[in-house]
Structures are given as C-alpha cells and as structure tokens.
C-alpha cells in the first residue's frame, strides 16, 4: 500500500506526519528545529527522501536544513557536525546559510532599491526564504524564493546558493513593494513540459515568467485589477498571494490574489476573474486537484483586515469548472466560532487515486480530506501556527 507524508512548517518548528494510504491514522514526529520558524519544506520529486527546509527567525537569520532520510534526521548541507573543518567537498563552511544578492557588474545588477510601504525607496535586504522548490529532475538543484524578493538556486544540494539576478534586475523592480508580510517571493512553479519555463509570484509585485531557466523575466499580470494601487491595472504592483498549476496543463494557471481569484489559459499572458459565487474572494492558498485539472480549491477569508473565515465558518470552496462556480465543503470543519487563517503555502494535495486535500491553520490544526474535499478530519489540533504544508505520496 502506498503511504503519505506531510511536511508541516510552523511558527515554532517542523513536524512530519505519516500515514498509510487510508489516511485515517497518523503518526506525528517533531518538533524539529524547535523555536525556529519553518517557512517551508519540500521533498525532491526524484528522491522523496531528500527534503529541504527553510528555517529562520528574526534573531539568528536564515538556515537551510536538509534531510536525506525522509525527515527523520536533518543537517545543514556542507557543514560537518560540531567539527572545525571545511565541508567534505571543499566548499567554505557555513555557505548553506548564505543568501547574498548578486551585485557583480558582469553577472548581476546593481543592488538598487525598491518601493517601501510609504512610497520611499529602500535598498534590497535579505530577510528569509519563504519557499523552496526542488528541481523536477535533479535532487541537488533547488530554487529558493526570498524576502526581499529574489530567486536563488543551489545546484549542489544546498551547500551554496546563488541569486538568479535577472528577476530582481527587471526594469520594474524599483516599483515593487512589500505586502503586509514583507516583499516576499512566495511561489515558484516549474513547467514540466518546458524545462526552461518558470513562474514566480511576489507580494506585492505580481507574477513573472521566465522561458530561459530564470535568466530573463517578463511580468505576466495583464487582466489583474487591484483597486489598492495607484494604477489598478499596472504592469506590476499587484499583491498576488499564490498561484497554482496542474502538471498536465502547465499553461493553465490559477491565482488567489489579495482580492479576486483569477485564471489564465495562456501561460499568464492574460488573466480573467473566476471568483464567481465565493462568499469572499480574499484568501491566501489556491490548489489544484491531482487528477482533475479543472478542480480547484480556495479558502475564503473575510477581508484584508479580518484574516478569518466569513461568519466564523471554516469552509473550503471547490470549483469543478476551473472557477466561477464554487461549492462550500464543510463536512468535518468547524462551522461556528472559527477565526483562524490559512496561509498561502499551507494547502496541498496528494496523488493517491482518491485525491487527498490538506491544509493547516494559524490555530495549529491540520485537516485532511481523503476524498477530494467531501469529508474532513482533524489530524493535528494543537500545533504552533502552521506556515506551510507539503504532501508527499510515497
């Protein structure tokens, strides 16, 4: 029987939940990295036991952790345990924690500035890694989305990281601004059909596409409308909360924006709103069913200032038509006095025949539906605030 492993990043550590394919009984291990915020963990598609984690806090900065045994044990890539030595492959020690913007005249761009909340210009400053996206083909290659917004990549299993400076060097970068959570690059999608094609999303800049493995980038925000910026239809400046894609149809993208749920059928060249009958089109995560590319999920949140479900009812909304028409999924979810939030990276699906849907809340609950959202179970109730969920089908 196949099994499922959930990687849960929380405000105060990481947890690994495992179950067999029935998804009824779960073992929970952790916390790993107790006291640290684990923004994201994700396993390699070609080596599921190879998992990368972004571990961070405001006091001591950014740490990259790696597991080669499915999350049972962890280490910092290239750093021998408690020894005074360079790493076995000769890399300088401590490089796995090092995220430095590329400022060389030859390969990078001058660091420059970006817009701050008050409209002033601020220099770029690295804060943390929000999202890790392992390569579809090479377990040693991983992309990292950073705050302040930039894309980094390792090709040596996390031992060292280097910026792909073409993104931050885009001519529009001076107009990018932070969202409430900071100016974060939070979504990275890799196109399985066109290996050089990547999509990223930044709050608050918008969505960008590269067709040359991250060398150059194009803003793809046509059709977005954001009343909270001076030019509501600007090329950049939109607060995109997350984008999602089905691997079988990588030119179709779905977006949960600050307000509005959107879709694109042309690899982001244009977008149209598909919020339809949602009770609120504000929210953070958006996810696509593993086997039905037109079935998508969102979790509506009341508003940009009231980050909890409308009416205190935790409802996942599912559309089987790629948007516009939505149904509330409530069976097993709290339908009164629920005031948690579900953050942008805290929803995922498995690939079992009966697709499982998972999400975590800022209240520390992890919910699973083993039947595409029809019924929900609470599989963890009292974790720290959940920042991210990834699911591995083993």
């Amino acid at each position, binding site marked *: 029987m196949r099994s499922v492993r959930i990687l849960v990043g929380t405000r105060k550590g990481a947890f690994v939940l495992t179950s067999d394919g029935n998804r009824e009984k779960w073992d929970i291990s952790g916390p790993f990295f107790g006291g640290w915020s684990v923004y994201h963990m994700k396993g390699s598609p070609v080596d599921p036991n190879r998992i990368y984690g972004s571990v961070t806090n405001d006091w*001591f900065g950014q*740490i990259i952790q790696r597991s080669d045994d499915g999350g049972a044990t962890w280490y910092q890539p290239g750093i021998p345990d408690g020894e005074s030595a360079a790493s076995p492959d000769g890399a300088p020690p401590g*490089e796995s924690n090092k995220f430095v913007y590329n400022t060389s005249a030859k390969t990078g761009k001058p660091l420059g500035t970006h817009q701050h909340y008050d409209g002033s210009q601020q220099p770029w400053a690295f804060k943390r890694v929000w999202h890790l996206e392992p390569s579809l083909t090479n377990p040693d290659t991983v992309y990292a989305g950073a705050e302040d917004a930039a894309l980094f990549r390792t090709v040596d299993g996390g031992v060292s990281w280097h910026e792909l400076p073409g993104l931050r060097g885009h001519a529009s970068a001076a107009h990018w601004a932070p969202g409430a959570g900071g100016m974060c690059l939070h979504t990275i999608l890799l196109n399985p059909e066109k290996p050089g094609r990547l999509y990223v999303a930044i709050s608050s800049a918008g969505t960008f596409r590269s067709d040359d493995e991250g060398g150059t980038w194009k803003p793809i925000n046509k059709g977005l409308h954001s009343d909270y910026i001076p030019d509501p239809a600007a090329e950049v400046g939109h607060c995109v909360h997350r984008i999602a894609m089905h691997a079988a149809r990588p030119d179709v993208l779905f977006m949960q924006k600050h307000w509005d749920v959107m879709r694109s059928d042309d690899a982001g060249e244009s977008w149209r709103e598909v919020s339809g009958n949602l009770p609120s089109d504000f929210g953070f995560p958006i996810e696509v069913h593993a086997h039905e590319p037109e079935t998508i999920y969102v979790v509506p949140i009341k508003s940009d200032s009231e980050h909890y479900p409308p009416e205190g009812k935790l409802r996942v909304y599912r559309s089987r038509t790629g948007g516009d028409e939505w149904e509330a999924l409530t069976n097993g979810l709290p339908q009164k006095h629920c005031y948690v939030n579900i953050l942008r990276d805290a929803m995922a699906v498995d690939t079992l025949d009966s697709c499982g849907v998972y999400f975590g809340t800022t209240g520390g609950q992890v919910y699973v539906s083993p039947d595409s959202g029809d019924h929900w179970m609470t599989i963890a109730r009292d974790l720290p605030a959940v920042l991210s969920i990834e699911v591995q089908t083993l």
Partner: protein
Amino acid sequence: MMIRVVLPAHLRGLAKVGSEISLDVREPVTLGTVLDAVESQYPALCGTIRDHVTRKRRPLVRFFANGADYSHQPADAAIPDAVITGDEPFIILGAIAGG
C-alpha cells in the same frame, strides 16, 4: 587561550552542543577573535551571530563579558581577563524582544 562561551538556546540546537562551549582562541583575545573561533569550530553558526558579508552583529544579538555589554564594541575590543582566564564565560544572547 581556552575561552568559555555561553550560547542562546536557538544556537545550541544548531551547533548540537550544550549551553556552554570551550574554544581555543588565538591571542590577542578580542571580541572579533572570539567570534571567529565560534564560527570556525561551529560552522553551522556562520551567519547566525554576524552577517555573512559585512561581519556586523545581527541586530537582535547581544554580547556580554564579565558583566559588561560588548554588543556595540568594535571587533578589536579586548576581552576582560576574567573571561580569558576562564573564570567567567563570554555570553552570546538573543535580545529580549516581543515576549
């Protein structure tokens, strides 16, 4: 010189050590050479105390030696004799903030 260094809880976990470590620090023993020794012997801590590039103290990290605040001292600041002799530890602390 063998210097005792007390680490904050977050960094103990990273370095996989207890609350206190002993380091052989080259002379002259200064704030900078103590921190160099910490990072050299425990490379997992590179970047957690000082910025990788600028070598500046991270804003929410504090240093204390024999009751004196060394957080704002230059890297070549001499360390008190009581720390050099091992009678007192050099303390690296996460600033109290938000708790």
